[in-house]
């Protein structure tokens, strides 16, 4: 799941995979904006085939949070 999430973040943002760590904070480290985050969520949904409700997005502070969420819910 980690590789999948990192790949999707890299594709969505244009960042290098090496710069995306599990501990990276989406806002402060990766400097994602709201539009980046919802784009990322839409791509993650496509990849895992499951809807991610808007209310769950606030749980995504770090890359690890996304990995944990998808492992638990996907």
């Amino acid at each position: 799941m980690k590789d999948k999430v990192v790949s999707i973040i890299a594709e969505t943002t244009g960042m290098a995979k090496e710069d995306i760590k599990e501990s990276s904070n989406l806002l402060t480290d990766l400097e994602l904006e709201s539009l980046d985050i919802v784009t990322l969520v839409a791509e993650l949904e496509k990849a895992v085939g499951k809807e991610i409700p808007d209310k769950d997005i606030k749980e995504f502070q770090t890359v690890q949070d996304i990995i944990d969420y998808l492992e638990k819910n996907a």
Partner: protein
Amino acid sequence: MLKIYEYKDISSKEALKRALKNYNINNIELVYNEYGKPYLKDNAIYFNISHTKNIVVVAVSDTEVGIDIQYKCYKPRVKDKYFTKSEIEYIDNALDKEDAFTRVWVKKEAYVKMLGQGLSYGLRNVDTNSLNIDVQMKDNLYMAVCLKNS
């Protein structure tokens, strides 16, 4: 009272510091609501921040305020998932889809940020066609500001 301060090449934190200096607020103490929206502790001044690339804007008001800036873009998957039927129709029928998408996006964001719930509110629950929010555009940078009761 609404004032918008725009800065380049500084952090959001520094931008807020500089904006609030205009109100003689030098010691910034923040509290957060359950969705993470920051407020000044023990102060009736409201603010909201948005950034994109190297631009940061700070809106300061005496009422709840939300602001969003975004460079012109078009994200079809975001449109399909987060926009209402009438917003999708508006964009699909527009000659300039990037322009239409970006206008809807900044209005939507400014509104949910004003509410203090951000994305948690459910972007599909907001139909920007029914909101009276102006969008300003300069050099492909779009900006929407939403005050309470807009």
